[in-house]
């Protein structure tokens, strides 16, 4: 039983680490790789939880995660990078040190919120939940702190990974919910892909600063 805990926590920790590294990376290619790693570890965590909880649904979740987020989405993202020639693109909005400090603070907040308010729950769920909330918050921070639309999308996808991490840690979470979330993310990705193409056509860059300037002038 203790192996169940420690392995689950280890995988959750790796997912969190990936999210944290995402914050520190500025090159889009590296961010995509990190996201892929995160998704793969998440799929492994889902398989492990499925084995531990004897739930067939979690295996399904793992397969979907692996196929969709571990392979399909990174492939699509890499295609975008290739097509837009963003291989060497560097994104900057917030200072690296500042964003890392903020990230540490967010993890602290997540632990501070989850651990006291779930005192009576099983410890497996509690710590998993704290990690998942940290991943969600870090993903949001990535969205806020980056200028490039693609980096914002990666932040969004990472946020969604945090949600899935929380879902697989909970015994009895309906499969439909996870499935629909995954589908939603795929749809959002497709929409955003089209949107990116349009931005590129109009502004010749994926940096949203140009849009912001036009917004300011237009209103």
């Amino acid at each position, binding site marked *: 039983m203790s192996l169940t805990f420690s392995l689950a926590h280890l995988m959750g920790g790796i997912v969190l680490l990936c999210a944290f590294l995402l914050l520190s990376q500025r090159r889009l290619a590296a961010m995509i790789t990190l996201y892929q790693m995160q998704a793969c570890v998440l799929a492994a965590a889902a398989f492990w939880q499925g084995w531990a909880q004897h739930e067939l649904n979690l295996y399904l979740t793992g397969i979907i995660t692996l196929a969709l987020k571990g392979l399909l989405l990174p492939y699509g993202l890499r295609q975008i990078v290739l097509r837009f020639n963003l291989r060497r693109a560097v994104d900057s909005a917030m200072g690296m040190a500042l964003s890392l400090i903020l990230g540490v603070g967010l993890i602290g907040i997540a632990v*501070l*919120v989850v651990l006291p308010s779930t005192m009576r729950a099983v410890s497996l769920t509690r710590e998993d939940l704290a990690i998942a909330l940290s991943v969600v918050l870090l993903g*949001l*921070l990535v*969205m*806020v702190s980056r200028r490039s639309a693609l980096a914002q999308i990666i932040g969004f996808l990472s946020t969604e990974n945090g949600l899935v991490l929380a879902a697989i840690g909970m015994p009895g979470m309906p499969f439909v919910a996870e499935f629909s979330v995954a589908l939603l993310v795929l749809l959002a990705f497709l929409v955003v892909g089209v949107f990116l193409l349009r931005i590129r056509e109009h502004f010749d860059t994926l940096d949203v600063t140009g*849009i*912001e300037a036009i*917004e300011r002038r237009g*209103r």
Partner: protein
Amino acid sequence: MHLQPDALSWLFLGILLPQVVASAVAGMRGSVTFWVFVLGMALALLAGDAFTLIFGFELMSAASWLLVLRGDERPATFYVTMAIFSGACLIPAVFLPASSVAFVLILLGTGAKAGLAPLHAWLPKAHPAPPAGVSALMSGGMVKVALYVLIRYAFIILAPAAQPWWGVVLIAAGLASVLIGALRAMLEVELKTVLACSTVEHVGLIAVGLGVALRAKAMGDETLEGLGLQAALLCVVAHALFKPLLFLGAGEVKRAVGTASLNWLGGLVRGMPRLGGLMLLGAACMAALPLGPGFAPEFLLLHAVIGAAATGGILARLFFTAALAILGLGAALALGAAVRLFGMGFLGRPRSLQAAAADDIRGATLWAMGGLAVLMLPVALLPGLVLGTMTPVFLLLAPQAALPPLAYAPLSLVLLAFLAAAALGFVLQRWGVRGTREVAGWNGGFGAPPPWLPFGDPATQPSATGLAEPVARAIGRGVLARDMADPTEIWLVAPLLRLHGRFVRVAERIRRATIRERLAFVFGALVVFLLALGLGEGG
């Protein structure tokens, strides 16, 4: 949304109806905003719960702001600042339990909307800006809706917690309005501004009546309570009839002459006899002349204040004696303003070519003004009967109030005066000495030409500014600020406007925020909530 009209609602709806019809007939019926404005007022009057009341009230404010904006931009900004201030006071107040804090907030919120001093400075700017029909409805209707909210809360909803000092505060605010409103009505040059200042004065009169009644209610004095309420509500009725009439007339003057500045009018009564007659009637009511609809409420009000001066301690007695003096001064100034309005605008020689060539009114506006004038007749000649029909309202507001019969019967006075005049005429006809005599005096606004212009020039007649000059020197310098501006404009309105400007800039900054900044707002709010949750759970 919940409607539950009672006697008070019906009374105010009845007051509103003639002006809405008159304004619609006089040319506003095609405007959607106008009907939204009317809908807001009706909703506020019919409301059965606080939410509907506030909803209607704010709908009225927003629609009237759009209508003022149609006239001019600066007064609209002025107006919306005050409307927001009023909303910021009213919205918390209606959800508070009955207490003095709630009353003060209600008084600030409704006072700002009704033009009660010291929150009145916007009214002489905003009311003249929109088209005449809207001005009429704003002055005659919107102000009354604000007073309706004040009456409903002060006399019904907050009644269990009533304190005598509530009434005193209301009286003090009313007296300040009377003094400043009447004085500025005497000094202003623009016709519509004069009328708006006179509205401030009448709101002050109503507030004094309500204050006397409120204080008497808290002290358990039934007679005084009834008297104060009678004065206030009768004044509401009278003002709601003659002020729209005057505003519609002012709009017609502006249409015919191109300006409504008294310094450029004159002699209009010859070119526009029908409008002149109606305006004379309205001006007589504005001055509260006997036999007009404005006299009975002022008569009752003075009685109420005299009665109140006999109650309470020495300070209260001194206060009410001073109040009598201020009311007397206000009545005199209002009379002066009415004489100046009619004498400068309609008598004498035209001061401009346009004034000389002005066409008389006809058609819809004539019907609208004539209808209002006809409705004034019962209020003027049978005020006792009008008060009698309002008995359910008095019983609702003050169940134990004693309602003394009105000691003023204009109908018999009219008959007596008619008999006396007929007898005098007969005597003069029979035994009088024939012959004419030249008398120099007011001379109908005509002035003797100066020696260097022997053939006269209309511009050498005394101007409206010149006529008001003695009053400005005698009283204006003491009461008003420099350049005859309103004293509250510097101390109260300017800081409010600055605060409003700052809020607008912040709101504009938020509206212009980029997607990333908006995300950051939401994210920051989420983190703050989580932090609060964590600290709350942990501690």
